[in-house]
């Protein structure tokens, strides 16, 4: 599979009183037109990895890599002009809570059409937006176009966000905990929509989440991150063959509806994993 995205030795450091602290320590992976899940707990560096790919590392941090290439373009030295051409048009990001990621003072329609117009296509902006809202299974697209983000439920808001990010037909979508703020029944609906859109358009998807089980059911490959490093990379269907103790511990410590292990096996952290 030709590589859509190539990352080699990505390192992200932030300044602190004791000197620079690396939150991402040498992450390498490649992504084709497939679904890659990046799983980790808080502090593992998974969100920063996603942001670095889009060049969205906070100003205080420094991101370096031996290789950071998207479709042949070197992202490490991209100029702001190049980024503007890439972001939104070829690479998009869906974030966790639509309450915070959608502009609260603009209607959904305006935000959608803005995205379309920015990347060429003024005339069919409205039609494209309506079509996209229908594609995310919003049954009343006209009403949603005229609505403000706070007037929509969590699930609808997230679907509107997905519509906004996909209306320009990007090649790569990064989803950072896209369903964590949603109820579990709504989560499944949103994931189904994402699943269908990603398959239909042949996009690459990076799905960042803390939920290892969910990611292993949704993605093709899974990267497990701990303390800024990738500790395991495996095929999603082969989760039961996980070899790293962190992955195994993470899988085993979750309660299940049918399980009856009491007490729950606890993840014993080994300092050796920090190497």
């Amino acid at each position, binding site marked *: 599979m030709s590589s859509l995205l190539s990352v080699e030795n990505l390192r992200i450091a932030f300044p602190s009183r004791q000197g620079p602290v690396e939150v991402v320590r040498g992450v390498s992976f490649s992504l084709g037109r497939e679904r890659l899940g990046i799983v980790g707990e*808080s502090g593992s560096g998974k969100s920063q990895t996603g942001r670095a790919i889009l060049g969205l590392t906070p100003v205080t941090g420094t991101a370096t890599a031996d290789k950071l290439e998207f479709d042949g373009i070197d992202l490490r030295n991209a100029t702001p002009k190049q980024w503007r051409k890439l972001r939104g048009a070829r690479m998009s990001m869906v974030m966790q809570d639509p309450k915070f990621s959608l502009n609260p003072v603009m209607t959904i329609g305006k935000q959608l059409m803005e995205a379309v117009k920015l990347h060429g296509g003024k005339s069919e902006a409205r039609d494209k937006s309506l079509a996209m809202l229908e594609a995310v299974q919003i049954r009343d697209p006209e009403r949603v176009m005229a609505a403000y983000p706070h007037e929509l439920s969590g699930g609808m808001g997230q679907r509107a966000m997905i519509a906004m990010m996909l209306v320009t037909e990007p090649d790569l979508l990064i989803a950072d905990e896209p369903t964590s703020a949603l109820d579990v029944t*709504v989560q499944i609906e949103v994931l189904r929509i994402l699943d269908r859109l990603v398959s239909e358009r042949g996009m690459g998807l990076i799905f960042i989440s803390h939920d290892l089980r969910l990611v292993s059911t949704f993605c093709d490959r899974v990267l497990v991150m701990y303390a800024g490093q990738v500790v395991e990379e495996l095929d999603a269907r082969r989760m039961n063959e996980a070899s790293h103790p962190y992955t195994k511990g993470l899988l085993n410590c979750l309660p299940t509806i049918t399980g009856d292990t009491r007490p729950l096996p606890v993840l014993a952290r080994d300092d050796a994993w920090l190497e």
Partner: protein
Amino acid sequence: MALIEIENLEVTFDGGDRQVKALKGVSLSVDEEDSFGIVGESGSGKSTVLRAMCGLAPVTGGRISIDGKPVSAPRDQAFYRRVQMVFQDPYASLHPRHTIDRVLSEPLAIHGFDHAEKRVEQALEDVGLGSGFRFRYPHQLSGGQRQRVAIARALILEPKIILLDEPTSALDASIQAEVLNLLDRLRGERGLTYILVSHDLAVVSHMCDRLMVMQSGEVVEELTREALQAHQTTKDYTRNLLTASEGFTRDAARQR
């Protein structure tokens, strides 16, 4: 006779010109040393049930009784020595400017308990935190450690009933397991009665013998753990919840 009896509880929030009925007649009963779960999605009213029990939500109908006697309104000191609550957000439930020592000794001071020093140290030990934590501030603790402090605080007045409002939802999976194990152990050691609220069916199924499913302020169904595990549910909503809890399946997607 059940320890906790709630009959037709109604809670209405007054937002000026709009009234929101958060609970529309909820009934439940919990026996002593039971662990009872309330499961539901956002807006179901599950947290409101706990808050209404504590007097933190405006009750507009129904009755709450503990040990056969209706609770007083406003709640009195005797109530607070029987019923305590652990909140969801470990980052918000501890006062940012108080040391852990203050968090644990203040309730003792309010109720006039003796041997406060010893009780505080014992409480910290019971939840698996050493005495080195005693004089730290909350921002120096991790989420899991803060939640342990919240549990210690709930237990320090030696209540019989603990209300748990999504106690592990804000914690990482590995920490969740530790906290759930701690809650389990404490319940067994002290013969406590739990009412646990969560959106996570797996957590409720693991921790509770009986549970209640809520939606939009009403009770959908009451089940035992065994019935839940065997998928013996008569209601569509419960069935949807069970299916959704199993994760994403592409076969289900193709069926649509």
